[in-house]
């Protein structure tokens, strides 16, 4: 590390260049962090998805199926627990601010016990018809705290009284879970059911199942599909593991897109840092000749150039990923709520990829200048003839 003062002097020889390079690298790595962080989120969702949880919903859409379907599903062999839910889609104030409330019944805890909602909190919601429990992301998005009123408009769900507004009371706020990247809101099934016109009551949009054994859940899903195939209510069934396995965002391959963007950012800074280090070496060619003359080996000179090139890359990568981490936490606040992307996660893999990319950019940038230094003719370099 005795080279450090030399390297520092080299970097700070042109402070404007050093700072601008650092800023540019930082910005590129902010983007890198957000993009690869988004990948990490999709990976985590796929990994944490439960093999023993199964979703089933009406195959041909519509208003839902009679709640009796849930009881029939419960009787299928291999099914441990069953809960039924209704969806309340709508918006807050403006149609752009989309929101989605899952209206759950008294069995919810037996199937969604891992959602971080305590038995007491489930109880509060199940006892209070207008009560809801929100995850932190949603609470932050709508600026709600416990005790606040939450009002939304739904044009999809017809109310018996003809109104489109729905008022809720926020009873609890819980931590988010990786499976629900966009947060969640749970409400009370009875509220939506009793608000509907009589003809629409007693229907559910989705039945969720916990299988006895994760290994047999695919077979259970098939059994459900078969049971209802020729009934008045054909069902479409899928395990949570399968549903969350793709990198799928509405049919787009999100991984391919985020990787492409991150790569383009890296390509951009590669040119910048490569050019910067080449210029810096060119300007100090005679100085390097002096170093070699007084006994610095090729290896020592190589290390110095690599370190000089690596300094802005590593520092920029650290700063950039740091900024990305801060930004990711602020996304629910910064983004309009119609922006339905999950939040990027700065997992250890993201840090490893960022560090590896920073080193690669540094090495590639330094490669050509190093080659020139190795082949330099000391005598002519010292006399400034190159």
């Amino acid at each position: 590390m005795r080279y450090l003062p030399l390297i520092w002097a080299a970097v700070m020889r042109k402070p404007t260049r050093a700072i601008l390079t650092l800023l540019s690298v930082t910005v590129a790595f902010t983007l890198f962090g957000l993009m690869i962080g988004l990948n990490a989120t999709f990976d985590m969702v796929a990994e944490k998805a439960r093999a023993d949880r199964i979703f089933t919903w009406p195959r041909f859409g519509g208003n839902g199926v009679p709640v009796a379907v849930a009881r029939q599903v419960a009787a299928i062999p291999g099914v441990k627990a069953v809960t039924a839910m209704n969806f309340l889609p709508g918006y807050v104030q403006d149609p752009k601010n989309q929101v989605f409330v899952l209206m759950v019944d008294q069995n919810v805890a037996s199937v969604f016990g891992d959602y971080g909602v305590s038995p007491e909190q489930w109880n509060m919601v199940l006892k209070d018809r207008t009560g809801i429990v929100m995850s932190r992301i949603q609470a932050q998005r709508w600026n709600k705290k416990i005790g606040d009123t939450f009002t939304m408009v739904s044009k999809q769900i017809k109310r018996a009284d003809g109104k489109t507004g729905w008022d809720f009371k926020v009873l609890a706020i819980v931590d988010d879970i990786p499976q629900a990247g966009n947060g969640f809101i749970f409400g009370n099934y009875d509220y939506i059911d009793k608000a509907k016109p009589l003809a629409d009551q007693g229907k559910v949009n989705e039945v969720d199942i916990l299988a006895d054994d994760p290994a047999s859940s695919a077979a259970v899903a098939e059994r459900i599909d078969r049971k209802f195939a020729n009934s008045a209510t054909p069902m479409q069934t899928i395990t949570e593991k399968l549903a969350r396995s793709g990198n799928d965002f509405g049919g787009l391959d999100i991984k391919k897109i985020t990787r492409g963007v991150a790569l383009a950012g890296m390509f951009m800074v590669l040119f910048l840092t490569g050019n910067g280090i080449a210029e810096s070496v060119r300007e100090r060619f005679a100085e390097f000749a002096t170093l070699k003359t007084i006994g610095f080996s090729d290896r020592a000179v190589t290390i110095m150039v690599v370190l000089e090139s690596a300094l802005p890359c590593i520092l920029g990568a650290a700063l950039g990923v740091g900024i990305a981490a801060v930004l990711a936490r602020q996304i629910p606040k910064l983004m309009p709520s119609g922006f339905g992307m999950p939040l990027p996660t700065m997992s250890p893999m993201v840090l490893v990829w960022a560090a590896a990319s920073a080193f690669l950019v540094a090495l590639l940038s330094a490669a050509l200048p190093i080659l020139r230094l190795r082949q330099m003719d000391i005598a002519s370099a010292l006399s400034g003839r190159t």
Partner: protein
Amino acid sequence: MFRQIFIVSALNFKSLTSRFWQSMVIVVGLAATIGVMLSMLSMSAGMREAVVNAGNPNRAIVVSKGADSEGQSSITRAMAPLITDAPGIARDKDGKPLADRELTMGIPVLRRDGSTGSTTMRGLSDKGPGVRPEIRIVQGRMFQPGRRELIVGVGAQVMFQQMQVGDTVILPDGKWPIVGVFTSGDTLEGQMIGDSETLLTSTHKTNYNTVLVRLASQDTLDAFKKALTTNPALSVTVERHSDWYNRIAGRQTFTLALLGYIVGTVMAIGALFGCLNTMYSAVSTRGREIATLRALGYGAFPVAVSVILEAVLLSVAGALIGALIAWSLYDGKQSLFNNSIFHLSVSPTQFKLGIIWAVVVALLGGLLPSIRAARRPVVEALRAT
């Protein structure tokens, strides 16, 4: 003055070759920025085109009051004749109104990669082809009213499995054969179409979703709208079909467009720092040359302008390269988002957008260096080694 700007700029560009790699920082920076941004925007732009193509100013759509999508809307059997008998609707050669009660529903399909997706099953009546003349059968035949058979769009064939003529689709009352393939130049190409009455029976539904009418002329919309909205037996919203699609296209493409602009902005900031770096460095390399010009009597302003011009030229060149890459990779490619099929699009409008961004980056990135170049004392610059 303009002569001075021209001469100084010409001198700059002649010396560009000696600063080739340095200049490439700007070109590559903008190429990457604009390439990535336009690639991402090709999704929202393509989707918008597909949706907007589906809207026709000669048509009007009737939905239940306040509905924001076809799926949300519901038109009862009792309401339908009140709508189709209203004034302002074009008539076919038998004098019948060109108005169709349409049905839409989601239906699960198998994507090419084996995952489960869903697409729209649309029900049309025998008036359907008259209201939507853009539907053209390219293989097989049209479905027959009253029969349990379907036609599929060419887009659906590309994106989903088992969509050939002769394949069958499972509906609640059994298997329906596919008898034809159609093109329409809009989002319908990703969907399946069957007879609305037969579909209603099959799916145990009672209500239609929308009524789509062909207007007698573009100007009869008001008369048609007035007749429906003043009828106390109806609670509906009437909208020109093109306006309807413009409105929902904005909502559908919102997230994707926003994502494209955010990524574009972040990359542009990165490119801006690169541009500043290059231009500062260019100004300092050419310090003596600039000072010589100043000593010869050239003004500070032409020198500053020439620096900015150089930045603009390099940026725009980069933006064009990036736009061309995005265009060659993605323009016209078929894609799928939220169950609608469309072609990615990198259009001249987006080329323009890319160039505007490049000019903004160049102006910001060239300004400070140009001021430094113009203000540097001549004597000091001439003495510098």
